[in-house]
């Protein structure tokens, strides 16, 4: 199902992210206003509802949001500890609520749109054409490149050249770096060759410069 106006959806989603991210969280000794708590409560609930409507399942939406939480908590924890030392539990809780709300709003917006309509949304927002083209090309190549990474890592493990429990940059620096250099340089060459053949195919079909 296509979204009628991806630009509008993206603009609204980004506006919600900005609103949630800029709602005062009690830093500099100021109190946390009531409207901040309202925003941080409403945004995750609305994001959850949007994810559920798009993905069609309670558990799938809950899983998507839950996957965000470890990253959010890991990034927020040092700031929370710092802020809580001076501002108390309220400021620490406010920072966590703010981070969860902004991440949930971003996730819901992009999940609602999907990659293709995200690009359409970026174009509709009148971002520079060249930049959007690069992001588009990146998304096109990303799936293939990520699949290649997984294949290469699986092949390395199958050949028994993966990392032993005690191997690493400290215990075997030369071998680890050589292995990393070969696998990533190989990945770059494959990515470029794939991009070049795609470009040739585009031009052969009469497409202009991308």
């Amino acid at each position, binding site marked *: 199902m296509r979204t009628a106006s991806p630009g509008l959806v993206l603009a609204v989603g*980004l506006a919600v*992210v*900005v609103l*949630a*991210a*800029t709602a005062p*969280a009690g*830093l*500099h000794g100021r109190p946390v206003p009531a409207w901040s708590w309202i925003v941080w409560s409403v945004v995750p609930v609305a994001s959850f509802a949007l994810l559920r409507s798009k993905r069609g399942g309670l558990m799938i939406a809950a899983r998507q949001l839950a996957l*965000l939480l470890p990253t959010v908590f890991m*990034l*927020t924890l040092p*700031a929370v500890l*710092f802020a809580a030392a001076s501002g108390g539990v309220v400021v620490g809780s406010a*920072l966590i609520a*703010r*981070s969860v*709300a*902004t991440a949930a709003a*971003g*996730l819901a917006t992009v999940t609602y749109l999907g990659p293709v309509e*995200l690009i359409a949304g970026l174009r509709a927002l009148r971002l*520079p054409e*060249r*930049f959007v*083209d*690069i*992001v588009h*090309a*990146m*998304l096109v*190549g*990303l799936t*293939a*490149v*990520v699949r290649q*990474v997984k294949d290469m890592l699986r092949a390395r493990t199958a050949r028994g050249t993966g*990392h032993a*429990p*005690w191997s*690493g*940059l*400290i215990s075997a*620096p030369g071998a680890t*770096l050589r292995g990393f*250099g070969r*696998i*990533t*340089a190989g*990945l*770059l*060459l494959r*990515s*470029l060759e*794939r*991009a*070049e053949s795609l*470009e040739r195919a*585009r031009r052969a079909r009469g497409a202009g*410069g991308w």
Partner: protein
Amino acid sequence: MHIPDGFLSPGVAATAWVVAAAGVATALRVERRETAPMPAGILGSVAAFIFAAQMVNVPVAAGTSGHLVGATLAAVLLGPWRALLAIAAVLAVQALLFQDGGVLAYGANLCDMGLSGCFVGYAIVRVVGRFVSGPRGVAAGAVLGAFAATVSGALGVSIWLGVSGLYPLSAILPVMLVTHVAIGLLEAALTGAILVTLLRWRPDLVAGIDTSVAGRRPAVLALGLFGAALAVAAFLAPFASALPDGLEKTAETLGFASRARAALPGLTVVAPAIAGVLGTVAAAGLAFAVGRKLETVNDDAHR
């Protein structure tokens, strides 16, 4: 190094957005003036590679691993302006699709990892290239540049967070610099590992650097770098000591500050400076080793 949303004050985030937007606008203008513009498909492909290379983790020790950031590598492959566009695309996809780094904090992240990562790294590669010609100069310069770019990025993150009022600048700056000296060395090693392989297999791909101009003595460069490291250390030490850092503040609150100072005199003051000098010396050693590794490569094949 990604700053998530909710950490920067609106003014700081807006300032960072303006700086980053100016950088991207300039990059687009430079790209438009190119007589042979690179297809967006190729630039996007390099961006996808950088994104994917961040998935390949290197085990540092039992239980920990690190990965490449890739800004200096991109600058060496594409030139700094195109690399900035590629990194801007990587950060945009990470922020929008994976919530890795915030939308509001995108400007700050692009300043720290894109502008700083590409241009600091590229400048050092150019400087080293004036002293050491050919692939060795490129690889050694990229190793040093990747280290410097990581540390300068960490400096940027500290400033954004400190000015936003989230942490005291005097607390976050030493912590970020000391930890990112280690991370910078890892970035330098990974950048060197990839470039050594690339310069052996496909030297023609390293298009961002003109390696044909060289001639000054490497010893002058080594002395210059060591002098620069000492100068930075001398600048940072008094700055880091101007206010009590997080550990000192905690120690004062808990009442063991005087005992800590007696046991570890000046440690928190000089730690960033010592780490900076040791890190620079280690990165220079790494650059030398990478240069030696490439001695067998025919310089003419690269030109």
